[in-house]
């Protein structure tokens, strides 16, 4: 049954990579990159159960955190340009 999950996630990964390569705008690429991160977490969980060693979900948590960090960094770059931008500076 874990095969089903892993295959589904792989199919979704192929489609997400297609969107990342084809995506007309920057935001489409960003969305696809974020989805690739989420799918990598699901793939990791599925593979862990498939191989009988599910105790490595820590790696998945790391992926999730770093996915959020990189996406927020990109978005902040888009809004302010400067990654270390402060609202206090503006005032």
């Amino acid at each position, binding site marked *: 049954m874990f095969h089903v999950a892993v295959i589904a996630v792989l199919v979704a990964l192929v489609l997400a990579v297609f969107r990342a390569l084809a995506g007309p705008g920057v935001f489409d690429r960003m969305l696809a990159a974020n989805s690739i991160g989420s799918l990598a977490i699901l793939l990791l969980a599925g593979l862990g159960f498939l191989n009988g060693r599910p105790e490595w979900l*820590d790696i998945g948590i*790391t992926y999730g955190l770093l996915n959020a*960090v990189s996406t927020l960094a990109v978005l902040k770059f888009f809004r302010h340009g400067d*990654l270390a931008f402060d*609202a206090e500076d503006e005032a």
Partner: protein
Amino acid sequence: MKQDVILRVGVKTVFPFILMFALYVHFHGDYGPGGGFQAGVIIAAGIILYALVFGSAAAKRVAPVAVVERLVPAGVLIYVFGGIPGLFAGKRFLDYTVYAQDPLHGHEWGVFIVEGGVIVTVAATMIAIFYAFGDRARG
């Protein structure tokens, strides 16, 4: 992004758990994937996330520049000093069996100290790099 309520609340909630999780990765490194290098990078990522949402001035209150810059060499020194007791005991540099009677426990203590050095250096270096790039932008 400081005005953004959703991001602010979300990051404020997640931030302590990131640091806790980094410590878990560090101390659980003997029994699962993890260790000093990974934990250091995760701590740095947590601080960077904080700096992204609250601005770098707020992040510098959490991790002051002076402290971070002193921690960069401090980690290497912890590593090196972790190896020196072996020399005094007449054994080789980085020989951990001197730390306890039982060689296994000695190895565990040695790995613990050395990994402590690694996490300090890696985390501090990554944060210092981020600060350096961020400060350059404002001249």
